[in-house]
């Protein structure tokens, strides 16, 4: 057992941390968030140049063969800056499905462009009626001639309005919630019948509703086997969960540290707030739960990387705990900052909002506790 980073991993972590330090003050971030497309093209190119976009791509395609541990290191630092670039959508979710389901031909075409920051993917996995079940899919793909006709709607698709390709889950057979009969397609959003309606999310990021109205998709756009998309989808969701949980851990660190600092500066009743024991204990709780999150993050990430028998269960435990703890730490950070914590001017509120969204992605705390106990 060993929790020490390799030299390469340490270098990545340091370089991401430096990038955040230099480019992601709250002012810088809010400026980027307010302008179209809601992230910085220049930062995206920097990320490509620094190799972050090819970190987990296979060596055969000039990638670095990285795994979820590398993604964790990047995402944890991203969480400290509330990074706006579509790393999760493209490099975690989209790329994972492409690698697991794409033919060599598709990979040869797309992967170099992804590495160069020239093509962006995203994954449309959610639907309104589904709650948090990935296998509840009513968007239908019907075979017609050489291709498929697709009708339905994918919900809250991250960064879909700026993506070059949207990977969608569809039902080609079986009942609404069957795990069999789900087929994934690499959708070109410029096809006729595709309407992508983008909007911001409360955390300052971007999402979209993707309407599919009699869209004709060629059969070679299928990723994986027809009807066997669920396994691929689930693997991508696990990677997504690990990534956003790492991001959450980064955000929680900022929140508890900012709170400790603020309460030592702010005086009320002729004392710094930090003199009050009730507040000290609250901050100790925030700190302890943050550390517990980090432990579960390491545990789940290592289980997944090493394909442990308990991997999925540990991921459920992690997502439950991060959802619950993120909100606890966020609520207390705001409470202990008093009125100032309620303003857009201070950064704590922004980290809190990101943690709220993370809880609602890929299943909230209740959902994963139930999956864990099942």
């Amino acid at each position: 057992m060993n929790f020490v980073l390799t030299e390469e991993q340490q270098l990545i972590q340091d370089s991401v941390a430096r990038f955040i330090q230099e480019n992601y003050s709250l002012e810088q971030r809010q400026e980027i968030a307010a302008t179209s497309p809601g992230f910085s093209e220049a930062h995206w190119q920097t990320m490509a140049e620094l190799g972050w976009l090819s970190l987990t791509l296979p060596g055969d395609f000039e990638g670095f063969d990285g795994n979820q541990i590398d993604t964790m290191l990047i995402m944890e630092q991203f969480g400290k800056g509330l990074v706006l670039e579509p790393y999760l959508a493209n490099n975690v979710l989209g790329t994972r499905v492409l690698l697991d389901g794409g033919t060599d031909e598709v990979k040869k075409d797309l992967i170099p462009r992804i590495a160069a920051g020239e093509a962006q993917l995203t994954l449309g996995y959610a639907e309104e009626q589904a709650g948090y079940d990935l296998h509840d899919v009513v968007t239908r793909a019907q075979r017609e001639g050489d291709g498929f006709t697709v009708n339905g709607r994918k919900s809250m698709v991250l960064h879909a309005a700026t993506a070059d390709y949207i990977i969608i889950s569809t039902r080609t057979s079986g009942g609404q919630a069957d795990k069999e009969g789900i087929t994934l397609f690499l959708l070109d959003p410029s096809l006729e019948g595709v309407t992508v309606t983008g909007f911001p999310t409360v955390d300052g990021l971007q999402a979209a509703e993707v309407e599919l109205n009699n869209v004709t998709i060629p059969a070679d756009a299928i990723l994986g086997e027809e009807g066997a998309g669920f396994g691929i989808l689930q693997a991508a969701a696990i990677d997504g969960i690990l990534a956003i949980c790492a991001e959450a851990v980064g955000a929680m660190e900022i929140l508890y540290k900012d709170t400790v600092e603020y309460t030592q500066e702010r005086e009320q009743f002729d004392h710094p707030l930090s003199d009050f024991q009730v507040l000290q204990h609250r901050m100790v709780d925030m700190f302890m739960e943050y550390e517990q999150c980090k432990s579960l993050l390491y545990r789940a990430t290592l289980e997944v990387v090493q394909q442990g028998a308990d991997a999925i269960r540990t991921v459920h435990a992690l997502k439950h705990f991060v959802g619950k703890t993120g909100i606890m730490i966020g609520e207390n950070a705001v409470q202990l900052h008093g009125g100032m914590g309620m303003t857009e001017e201070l950064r704590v509120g922004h980290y809190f909002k990101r943690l709220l969204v993370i809880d609602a992605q890929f299943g909230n705390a209740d959902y994963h506790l139930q999956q864990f106990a099942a």
Partner: protein
Amino acid sequence: MDIDLSPEDLAFQDEVRSFLADNAYRNGDDYNKWRLNWFDLAQDKGGWDVPKWPVEFGGPGWTPTQHYIWEKETATAQVPWDLPFGLSMLAPVLMNYGSEEQQKRFLPDIRARKVNWCQGYSEPGAGSDLANLKTRAEISEDGTHYVVNGTKIWTTLAHIADWIFCLTRTDDSGKKQEGITFLLFPMKQEGVEVKPIITLGGAHSVNMVHFTDVKVPVENRVGEEHKGWTYAKGLLQHERTGLAGISRSIVALAKLKEQAESVKRGNGSLMDDPAFRSKVAELEVDLMAAEFTELRSLAAAAGGNDPGPESSILKLKGTEIQQRIQKLTVEAGGIYSAAWGPLPVGPGFARGGMSGYLASRAYTIYGGASEVQKDVIAKNVLGIKTGGNS
């Protein structure tokens, strides 16, 4: 003790219900006209426009049970918007400590909803520690007016208020609580500058207010110079009782259940989800208790006294309950609770759910933070003596 309503109370309940039904807003009505007319009609009922005012100032003189019935019925009916600042906060201070002249000058306009007031209490350095305020009021040499300089923060609706009741420092030689003076002055005048503060849900309701050499005639001082803290304290207890919002929470919880029932989960709805269901049930139990705690406090205050330190219990419990309802609304919104901006996406309540939840985080901060409320209970109710800091 008796839980049933008496025949008289039942008759009162019917009367309230028919008043509310007869005078509900109808589509096409001019809202402002309807609003002011509604208060006129309520006044004609015998002080129903000012339920909490004492009889000698035109209030209805209801029993605690009647107040309870009124709260419950108005929480579900459509009633005109109203602000607490003049009506429930300043008015009792004027009744208890204001001069007869001040009562005659200010109370009728408050009652007629003609003048909007805001509350100049918190300052950048005086939040939970309210008595630490630094806004100065200096008496002029001829003794005819004060000159006010300083900054107030978190001033709710200062941008629409006509007047402010304001705590100022007139002496800092003694204890913090001494040397505070309670002044009234118009907001729309030179030297008063209002700057918006945008809060987490993106809303503008609170402000920063700067005063630069604002002249306030001495006749606008309530009570004695340096004694303002005494008057302000009673007002805070009124504010706290108002913030508990128990009746509103009962309505909100019913709405939450409806919303959760409209959210599909598997073959049923979110209300069939055991975790969600049990959280709703826990809330319901807490509300049942809080409703009776409020009733007990109403009964205790029936003599027209200040609500007393028990009001802190209600503020604490009531605001936590409101926050939990908001939190569950966000959970019910699921993935769509993250959607933001003007586009309608997902179930209708999801958007309002997130902004409501974010706004609700202030409930345990303003009007005396929960931590301070607990200090108040420890000290004044439990009688715990400490060498402590507050």
